[in-house]
């Protein structure tokens, strides 16, 4: 999956939670991604190179440490 797409999806999620409940935004974003993203997508988000990661909204960046790491390495792309 293209990094742009991953970034866009994560940022879109953040946009909702940032406005809905600013204090808990990071937790909400993390919970949403843990609940709905397949491990391959989470792995890709966690492995974004710093240059791309800079494009993530603050709530996503704050959520990264709260993401459940995928159990096994994603299959080779």
């Amino acid at each position, binding site marked *: *999956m*293209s990094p742009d*797409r991953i970034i*866009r*999806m994560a940022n*879109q*999620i953040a*946009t*909702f939670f940032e*406005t*809905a*409940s600013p204090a808990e935004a990071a937790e909400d974003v993390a919970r*949403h991604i843990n*609940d*709905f*993203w*397949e*491990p*391959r*997508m989470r792995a890709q988000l966690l492995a974004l190179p710093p240059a791309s990661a800079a494009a993530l909204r603050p709530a996503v960046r704050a959520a990264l440490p709260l993401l459940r790491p*995928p*159990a096994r390495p*994603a*299959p*080779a*792309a």
Partner: protein
Amino acid sequence: MKDFVIPDRRDMGTPEVRGGPPVTLSIDGFSVTVPEGTSILRAAAEAGIPIPKLCATDSLAAFGSCRLCLVEVEGRAGTPASCTTPVAPGMVVRTQTERLKRLRRGVMELYISDHPLDCLTCAANGDCELQDMAGAVGLREVRFEAGANHFARRTAEGPNPRWRPRDDSNPYFVYDPSKCIVCSRCVRACEEVQGTFALTIAGRGWDSRVSPGMDETFFGSECVSCGACVQACPTATLIETSVIAIGTPDRVVKTTCAYCGVGCSFDAELRGDELVRMVPSKEGKANRGHSCVKGRFAWGYATHRERILKPMIRARITDPWREVSWDEAIAHTARRFREIQAAHGAGAIGGITSSRCTNEETYLVQKLIRGVFGNNNVDTCARVCHSPTGYGLKQTFGTSAGTQDFDSVEQADVVVIIGANPTDGHPVFAARLKKRLRGGARLIVIDPRRIDLVRTPHVQAAHHLALRPGTNVAVLTAMAHVIVTEGLFDEGFIRTRCDTAAFDDYAEFVADPRHAPEATEALTGVPAADLRAAARLYATGGNGAIYYGLGVTEHSQGSTTVMAIANLAMLTGNIGRPGVGVNPLRGQNNVQGACDMGSFPHELPGYRHISDDAARAVYESLWGVPISPEPGLRIPNMLDAAAAGSFRGIYIQGEDILQSDPDTAHVAAGLRAMDCVVVHDLFLNETASYAHVFLPGSTFLEKDGTFTNAERRINRVRRVMAPRNGLADWEVTLRLAQAMGADWSYAHPSEIMAEIAATTPSFAGVSYELLDRLGSVQWPCTAAAPAGTPVMHIDGFVRGKGRFIRTEYVPTDERTGPRFPLLLTTGRILTQYNVGAQTRRTENRRWHDEDVLEIHPHDAETRGIHDGDWVRLASRKGAISLRARLTDRVAPGVVYTTFHHPGTAANIVTTDYSDWATNCPEYKVTAVQVSPSNGPTESQRDLAGQAAAARRILPAAE
């Protein structure tokens, strides 16, 4: 074979009266008790005494024109018509006296003197009420000389000026005026049941006759071919062409329409195993005896010559297809899937369940994926329509279910329709809604386009908020702003039923002046005064019911919009009783069921999250395999992963993702990258162009199962004829699972339902035995609610307290600009269904033979476009060509089209933007430009050429 009770199909003469105090009277010496307001005719019928009648039928209000139903009432002069005379306490009625017999014979004699006597060769022979009544009254002679009449083509003096030729302009029924008795049942059916007002009785007295519109043909008139008039006609005047062609049916199988989410119940009427006609069931709780043109008439696709009946395989998608046996096709598929998993991991394959297949079939496909493939890569086309409903309602109410039954609309006072076009998308619901609107309920329409309901005969919306596509959240939040700041909210309801901390937070949020309608007017295009008035009406007009469709969900803020709707309903206390509620109008027949049955990659059946250990344990112990606790890939993610190489095989049951999903190029690239694409469908659809295995599917007429409609109603689908392809779809999935090593065994779909009931709490009470007994049932169906649950959240929300959620408007990334200044939005029309695979293969194509682009005359003029011109519709993604239709239904700046025809390939232009929570694609907003053109674009031609090449089938080896 008859494993269920056929309900009483007798015509009771006049509609049932509910709720009146009991009245006891005597009819022919028998004592009868009926609710006050009941007609004598109906009371007699309930006592088992049928009074002769012609103009009365129990689907229509009594009219009293034929004078055949006369009775004598002790103490009253004359012979009143029993259909129009209500019962009274102590009344003594006689239905059969010498005087009545004489009068009735006289009436019948008059009718028959102007009726052709060709009963033996008449298509209604044996199914004609005129014939029956002639027999019932003992008519033995007709003393009038055949003089002036309507049925003879010629008279002694030359051509008969009163004779009219047969109208066979409609492909499904004919109108033969020579047989008409002018009872006006058809006219009343069109008005009262369907609400189209296409028919009138033109002329008076002897000259009166039924006329569609102003002396038009049926096809050329306003008629929408629902067939209500045909069903109501007591003679052969209006009759199905299929009955003319085949003869009268002699047995009935109860089943359910396989088209839209209304889920109409039908009596499939057969002769042998040949389907003669489909008649909507009077006792069907979703449709109450009505249907639309699709369900009643558009079933011919089942025997269409393009239907594929043999499995086929090929090594490469550029090869022609090779027909093989079922055994070979199944073994080949199983082997390919296992090879892919061995090489690329368990997660390298997945599947898509179908909203057109039964609950049982869908359950099996997700079981195949979770239990046999060993991952959660299962998704369904509901992804592209109502996934935001699931998410949004679950967050606010605790369950994704629509809150009402369809009957509820009869008690609504204010109806809000958001992003839905019921007269086209959910026609029978629309007919019931229009009836309520004619009865005085008021209507608010929130839609960029002026849908038919905004103004239709005897219905006029109180408000039409014609918002700019993509601004739903802004409009609904502004409505909440008005309700909160003007103090119109239902404080009692909120304090007792909702999470008050969340309410306080929400109230503070919406009260902010930036959400005021005046502040958002420039953005949404909705005049602030209109919006305020609409908000006040919804909050204060009595029972407020919201119905919404894909115009809500198919946006980047689809889930947010659903929450905004739920907020409005909680704010005004419009939840938890008949007449109110939040009602998603689901598109396909079994979208609800597909969602219920665990078709989403993060959810087990019954909406239990895949990380829920207890829920997983239920299946792990029953199936004897571990289930992955990780959510699987959604359809767009599968395609992305395919392009990246980690997802390589897919089993697609009954969906055409290439045509139905957005951004055709992205879908095609994903499919092309896979090693084994298995399509299980009726026809070689567009997706099959990229398939390596084709497994022929079966139609709803050929299998047993259940569908769950938009009101959570579980309806039985019953096998009407044997599967022409040899196997019902559930049997195919079963065989595939067995070939992949599973030890499944099911002899009948009822056993699958038993497994569903045993493992899914909300289905605990459901069984085929129960469905046969009750006809249908709305889940939750449990020990606490053994007959199901018509209205949800009565005493409390499923999640406990209702939760208000802030709904900030976030503009979509899809913006108009100088290159793409217009907004394209999409929809559907009555006669076609979804990608049109079935309806295009019926006579329904005569109503809609191509997709057209609706454009406002101003936008057309500045571009030099005339009505009917070919135009090029271009977005950032691609371009297609289609014909333009100039109309002010759409506002300037907005254009609209449908997506029923693969040749149009409307999804070449739609983007891959999607809902933030669920990835439901944003079909409803695409920035486009429109310019004159002279024919199909290159991408359309490419697609057509590729599809033609991909459909080649090798002649079978001798």
